[in-house]
């Protein structure tokens, strides 16, 4: 299960609306515990795929390193990522799968239809590595305030 606050949930969906018709992307910082990944903070990232930003995204490694340093400073880990699918379902694609390498992390995908965020789904990348990785549907629990107390499932 992925837990995140209403504020973060709304913010990552708003990001997808802002960048429409291009894909947005960002990083989920938090903690992993027995219940799954808990998001404490989201960090927006730039999409370097300006050649086809309508259906591709890429986060520059330099930016990822900065975010990882930020996480370390806050006592948090990178626990996942988010991106949008403009006018496309909130379902992982073959490209998403091929390019997913962070086993144990959550990948949130938000469908943005005609500029409006609709469904947001999360997929947990499981396995031990490239040979056996797979995406598993993951329940998203949106909570009031900090990602700590359960309130609402989506």
């Amino acid at each position, binding site marked *: 299960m992925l837990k995140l606050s209403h504020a973060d949930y709304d913010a990552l969906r708003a990001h997808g609306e802002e960048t429409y018709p291009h894909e947005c992307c960002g990083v989920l910082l938090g903690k992993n515990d027995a219940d799954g990944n808990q998001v404490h903070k989201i960090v927006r990232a730039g999409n370097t795929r300006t050649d086809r930003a309508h259906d*591709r*995204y*890429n986060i520059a490694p330099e930016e990822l390193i900065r975010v990882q340093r930020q996480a370390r400073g806050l006592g948090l880990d990178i626990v996942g990522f988010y991106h949008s699918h403009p006018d496309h*379902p909130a379902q992982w694609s073959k*490209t998403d799968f091929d390019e*997913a*390498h962070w086993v*144990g992390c959550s*990948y949130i995908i938000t469908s943005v239809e005609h500029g409006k965020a609709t469904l947001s789904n999360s997929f947990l990348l499981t396995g031990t590595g*490239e040979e056996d990785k797979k995406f598993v549907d993951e329940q998203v629990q949106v909570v009031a305030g900090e990602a700590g107390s359960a309130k609402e499932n989506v």
Partner: protein
Amino acid sequence: MKIHIPTPLRQYTKGQQTVTVGGTSITDALQDLTTNYPELRNHLYTGEGKLRSFVNIYLNDDDIRYLPEKEATKTGDDDELTIIPSIAGGN
């Protein structure tokens, strides 16, 4: 020197997010890392021993692929290596 380990690979470093290694070059440091944590090797390198295409390694703020001497670059105790798998996708 220190090597920062990304979340998915920490299961192979006994949960450590940063490990300290010896040596005087990037090659030495990575060799030390995979000697101490042998399960990492398959996750960093292909069967032919090449760095996997989606694995980025930075010496401080520089991608080691673009350093003039690449992995032969000399390092000091205060340098830091960061391993960071790529993030990309799309519909």
